[in-house]
Structure formats: structure tokens, C-alpha cells
């Protein structure tokens, strides 16, 4: 186990460096640079341009820049945003919470709801519930997330006036304490709801198919033959075996969510890292971009590792 974790850490690190190098190269090969944003659209003053390039070291050769960046990054310093002139660590730190809140809530809720629906559908395969759930999951799975989000806004905010349109808190009222928490929860309903609708089908499908599969396993027949009642067989044996694929999917979809949430953050003006990336891309804010990629790769690597370990706990056949 220790060795396994060690190995995973090592490959994780390698992954991160490679991800990093790829991004660094792609970003730097790309046309445009942050100087344009800093100079503003209205001027092309070459003196200003040269001065700014020098100031941010963008006039140095690429490999030098990469090594310099890596060096500082290894000390835990992700550098300073060129555009916002703030430590990247601070910027990410402020927004990470919001994204994690959104992503984790959605992931956990969809895990439970989707799995539950999948189990229900599997236990009554071919019934109305199964057909209805499957149909719904197909449709939801096929919707572009941003589109769904916008529709939810129009329906629940504009037409029904039930929920706030955007943001994480009510800008007008500066709530504190319990009220603040409630406020955030109310604001979370739509974005989390959108993510839920997108994610539930994934868990639904995997839960349904693995329950069906485990139900057909030979050992289930053994338990039936012993006269054990179906409820117990299901709750203890089918469930535990069928939950395994879900764990893997949870990891993958969490990783997907971490990056895929950007569109939702834009639609709902949610102050998270996803949006930070998008702005950083358009502004070519290299340090911020690299910083977020780093944080994202690390969190995906960590999530995957945790998932693997959890999996090993649930499945004694896995040995490291």
C-alpha cells in the first residue's frame, strides 16, 4: 500500500510536470500576450510595449522562463498575476472555495440521487419507473449544460421569480451568519441543479447497469438457494458489489466537473476558478493560467488517488 501510494505520488508528480510543460508550451506558442491586455485596446505604443515586456521578463528566452517558473512554483510560490498584480495563490485561494462548494455539492448529491434512481430502475427493470428514468436520463444527458442553465434561469428566476438569477450571494443585502449561509444555499440551487441534471444520468446509468450485472452473478444464485430473502441479498451483497464501478465514476466525474464547471460558472456568474481560467486564457495571464492548471492537475491527481484507495478498501481483490 505504502509503495503503491508512493508510486502514485510519483506518477502524479510526473503527470503534473508534463501537464505543465504541455500547457506552458501551448500557451507560449499561441499568438498574443498579456501585454496587449495591459496596454489596453486603444493604443499600440511600442515604447510602452517594450517597457512592459521587459518588466514581466517576457523578453527572455522561453526555456529560461520555464525553468524560472518551475523553480518558484516548487517553493510553493505560483508567482504574481501579470494582469491583476496579485499573488496567484491568493487569487486561486479566494475562488477555489466557491468552485469546490459547487462541484462537491453537485457531485455528492448526484451520486446519491443518480445511484438511487439507477437502483430503483434496475430492481424493476422494464417497469414504468425504469423506462421513465431512462428516458429522462437520456434527455438530460444530451443537453448542453450552458443551455440548460440559461433555461433554468429563465424559468425559475425570470418567469417564476422563485430564485436569484446569478452570483453566490445577494449583492444588495450583506448578510452574515445563518442568513449568509441560507443566502448562499438559495443561490446555489440553480447552478447545482444544472450540474445535478447533467450528472445524475451518469450515475443512473452506471448504477443501473452494475446492479443488473451483479444480479446475474453466480453468487447471487447461491444466496437465493440458501433461502436468504431478496432484501438482504440486495442490501448486503448486490449493493456492495454494484457500488464499485460507481466509485470509479465518481472520481472521473469529479475530475470532469472540476474543469467542466466553467461554463456553469459563467452562466450563473459564480465566482469560481473555472471563470478565472477562462479570463486568464483571454488575457493571456500566464502565471494565473499556469497556477490554475497546476491546482487543477493536482486536485485531479489527488482525487484519482483517493478514489483508488477507497476502491481498494471496498474491493479486497485489489492488492498493491
Amino acid at each position: 500500500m505504502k509503495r503503491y501510494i508512493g508510486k502514485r505520488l510519483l506518477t502524479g508528480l510526473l503527470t503534473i510536470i508534463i501537464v505543465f510543460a504541455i500547457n506552458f508550451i501551448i500557451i507560449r506558442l499561441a499568438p498574443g500576450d498579456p501585454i496587449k491586455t495591459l496596454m489596453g485596446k486603444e493604443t499600440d505604443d511600442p515604447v510602452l510595449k517594450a517597457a512592459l515586456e521587459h518588466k514581466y521578463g517576457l523578453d527572455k528566452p522561453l526555456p529560461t522562463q520555464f525553468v524560472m517558473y518551475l523553480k518558484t512554483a516548487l517553493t510553493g510560490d505560483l508567482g504574481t498575476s501579470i494582469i491583476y498584480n496579485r499573488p496567484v495563490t491568493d487569487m486561486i485561494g479566494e475562488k477555489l472555495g466557491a468552485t469546490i462548494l459547487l462541484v462537491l455539492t453537485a457531485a455528492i448529491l448526484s451520486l446519491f440521487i443518480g445511484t438511487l434512481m439507477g437502483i430503483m430502475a434496475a430492481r424493476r427493470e422494464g417497469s414504468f419507473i425504469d423506462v421513465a428514468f431512462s428516458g429522462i436520463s437520456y434527455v438530460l444527458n444530451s443537453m448542453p449544460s450552458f443551455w440548460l442553465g440559461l433555461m433554468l434561469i429563465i424559468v425559475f428566476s425570470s418567469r417564476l421569480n422563485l430564485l436569484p438569477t446569478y452570483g453566490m450571494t445577494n449583492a444588495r443585502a450583506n448578510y452574515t451568519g445563518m442568513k449568509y449561509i441560507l443566502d448562499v444555499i438559495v443561490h446555489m440551487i440553480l447552478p447545482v441543479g444544472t450540474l445535478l441534471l447533467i450528472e445524475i444520468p451518469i450515475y443512473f446509468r452506471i448504477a443501473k447497469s452494475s446492479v443488473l450485472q451483479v444480479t446475474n452473478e453466480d453468487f447471487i444464485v447461491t444466496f437465493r438457494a440458501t433461502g436468504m430473502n431478496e432484501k438482504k441479498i440486495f442490501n448486503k451483497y448486490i449493493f456492495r458489489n454494484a457500488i464499485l464501478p460507481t466509485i470509479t465514476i465518481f472520481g472521473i466525474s469529479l475530475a470532469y466537473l472540476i474543469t467542466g464547471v466553467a461554463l456553469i460558472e459563467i452562466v450563473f456568474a459564480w465566482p469560481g476558478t473555472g471563470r478565472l481560467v477562462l479570463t486568464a486564457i483571454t488575457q493571456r495571464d500566464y502565471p494565473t493560467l499556469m497556477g490554475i492548471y497546476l491546482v487543477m492537475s493536482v486536485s485531479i491527481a489527488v482525487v484519482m488517488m483517493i478514489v483508488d484507495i477507497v476502491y481498494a478498501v471496498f474491493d479486497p481483490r485489489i492488492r498493491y
Partner: protein
Amino acid sequence: SEPASAQAPAEEKVLIVRAIGDPMSFNPDTLPDDNNYPIVQNIFNRLVKLDTSKQIIPDLASKWEVSEDGKDITFYLREDAKWHDGNKVTSKDIKYTFDTIKANETYYMSTRLGIVDSIETPDDYTVVFKMNKADVSFIADLGWYGTFILPEHLFNNGQKWEDNPASKNPVGSGPFKFSEFKQGESITLVPNKDYHEGSPKLDKLIFSIIPDDATAVQALINGDIDMFENVPAGNVEELKADGNIRLALNEYPSPMRIIFNLKDKAVQDVNLRKAIATAINKEEISQKIYAGVQKPEYNMYPSLIKWASNSEETSPHFNIEEAKKILEDAGYKKDANGFYVTGLTLDVFEGSGYPEAAKLIEATLAQAGIDIEVQVHEYNAWSEKVGTRRDFMLEMQGGFMGPDPAALAKRFGTGQASNYADYSSAEFDALCEQGAATGDQAKRAEYYKKAQALLVKDLPYVPIVTFAGYDANRSDYINLPIDGTGKWGWAEFTYTDLAAN
């Protein structure tokens, strides 16, 4: 029905303005930042400012005069201005601000301040700019980006502005005080009760960040925000029909235009340029893409600045047959596919309706026998290709050409950085120089109109539509920035208040 979220405590007047993104910095002079521009206009003052019609009006300087030779400009400051911490705003602050900018090449106005030899402060409320060249348009530039007056007593501590703590926690002399910045969420300002024009009426001014237009429109409709500058043309009809919302047109001297790269052989023939200009249906573009909000622009200098704009000699009007005739006369022959000219490219960047406009242009040019391929780029990539490498035949851009027609020299003067067309005409340069050297508006208009006539003849560019957009706001608010022509700044909320009812 009022949505739940809008039911703030009745006695508090909170105005929420939609912002697109985070400000890069709260130091208003280091960078030209569209996102912080409306915010800092409410925290700081300049010597002069622009109102919503983009005309110069007084700010800290209550009046100013230009010397005979045009080289000295003297500003007389109002004496009641105070910093948010209670100190008085004096000429020292002004000298400090501009001296520092000039000394730092990376600050936006630094190069422009190259024409200023020295700044003198005969007394606490008088500032004299001594320049090495007569240029009246300098005054207008002082009302633009990067010219906000900063408090010397807070900044002058040996640290650069970028790293200066005073930049993070801005203390200005404007109507609002900085209160809170939540990155990615909002910027909150509170009124400066001691403001020299009187305390603002609002209890809170919040700039709330909503990146997506569609969401912002919904938020406006739902009352989650109160003001939305420049709503998408597509939403105008709908918002007009909404009784809670008031729309007001906000126009900018920043026309959409097609620039020809005169260095490129492909478009060096003025007849071809004329034919292209004649084959662009500006009316159609205006209607289809901007719902008529952005009007067709024929004048070479934005018609919004009426006194300087030449409406007599303009770029050609749409006429396919005429375009064909121009080509025929110039000796162009049709090829097998019916094209006189092929292989042209038009580089546009994504957004603002530009790609769509380009597509319409492509279609009408094709009717006139001119084959042009539209290439759409992400803004930065476009900027690199077109702005830095100057690698294009035709490109489409916008950009501010106000408030003073001196901008013409910046955009088309020989050797100027922003002269994408690489236009060069000694006559044009001379006219611009004359225009900049005099303070007499009538004379200046004459020079610049002549310069525009030259541009019509040479056609280094074709203006297409004006830039304008509706400001939408909750109709229960009065005295919004848009209402302040001649009275207050273009993003200033000093007098904004709930309508009494």
C-alpha cells in the same frame, strides 16, 4: 411582482451596476482598464472629464487656459476638493501624479506625457503644464484613461505604484469611497459624504460581476441588478417593452471600420478600395446585426463629434452596380466565376457582431465581383496578427476616435503606432499638425474636415457603422450617468437617486 432577492431593507438605496469582469487594479493610472474605468471614475477625480456625449467638462480644474503659442496650459483647481481622508487636494498632488507617470514607461500615459517638459505649481491651486509642442488635444487626453489624480501623501513612500499598498486600498477625492472588493463577485463603494459637489444620494454603489450577457439581461429583468451599460441589440425591443426598465442610447466615437493594409499590394489600388467601399451595405449591417442601434457611418471622422466631422465629403454609399463600374473602368476583368478580384482576406476578431458583419460584407462584395475570405480570430490572436505583425490585407476594428479629432493623427498620421493602414500623406500630416496647434475650434474644424476629405480620396479605411448601445436601467432611478450631458462624468453616480414617488 418584486423578486425576493430585490427586497433589500427599504431605507437603503443600493444601486447595482453590471460589470463584465474584475478590475485589474485599483490604481487608475497604471493601466487602461475597461473594467475599473467606471469604478475609479467614482472614486477619483481628474483635471477634466468626459461626459456621456464624450465632451470635455471640468472636474478638479474649474477652468483652464492655453497660452498664445499653445505650449503652456494652466489649470485652476477648485479649492474645496478633499481626499477621502480629509486632506486637501492641491496642485502638489497633480504634479506628483503626472511626474510619476512620466517617469515610469510602463504607465499608460507615460509616452503621451513626453510632450510635457515640466509641470509647475505656482500655488496650491494652480498647475501649469509646460510643453515642448503646441497640442490642444492634450487637454482632452487628460480626461481619458490613466490620468486620475492620486494623493501624494499616501503614495509618495518610495514604493512603485504597482506594489504600493495605497493602490490596493484606494483613497481618492471622488464621490464614493472604496469599501470592499470580492474578486470575481463585486466591488462595493460607499458615498463620500464630504464630496465637494455634495454627498451622493445612494447608500451603496455595487458593481456586480456577471460575465454572460444573457444572464445579465435576465438579472436586470428580475431586478437583481439596476443598471446594465450597453445591452445586446437583440434584447433592446424586449427591454423597451418592460415598464420597469428605461433605455437610453449611449453613443461613442468608435466606429466599426475596415482598414486596408496599404503595404500589401493586393489593396494598393485606390480604385479597388473605392469599389469595396461602394459594395458594403452599411444599412443592412446596421439593421440586421445591431437592430438599427448602431447607425451606418459614412463620415470619415465619427459623426458623433459634430463640430469636427465632415458630412460633406464622405465615404461612398452602397451601390453594387457602381462598384462594378469602378472596377470595369479601372481595367479589372471578370474571371470564369464572375469575379474581378479574388484572393482577398478580411481579418476580424470574435465578438461585438464583427464576424457576422464581415459575413454580410463578404456576401455583398461577392455580388460586386470581389471575392473576399473572412478569417475570424480570438482577440489576442487577431491583435498579434494584425496589430503586431501587420500581416493582413483588410481588417476590421473599432476603437475610440474621440474626444478630440486629434485622434485622426494618431490613427492615420505617418509612422504612428496605431496607423494600421500604414497611410502616409504629408498633406494630411500637416493638416493634423495645424489642427492640434490652435485652440480655436472653428479653425480646427476646418483643418480636420480638410484632412477627412483627403481620407475620402485615398480611402485607407472605410467606416461602417457607429458604435452605440443602450444603457438599460431600472426606471425608478434618476440622474444616472447617461442623463448627465454637460453636467457629470460618463460613469458617474454622484447624483443618482431613486425617483421620489
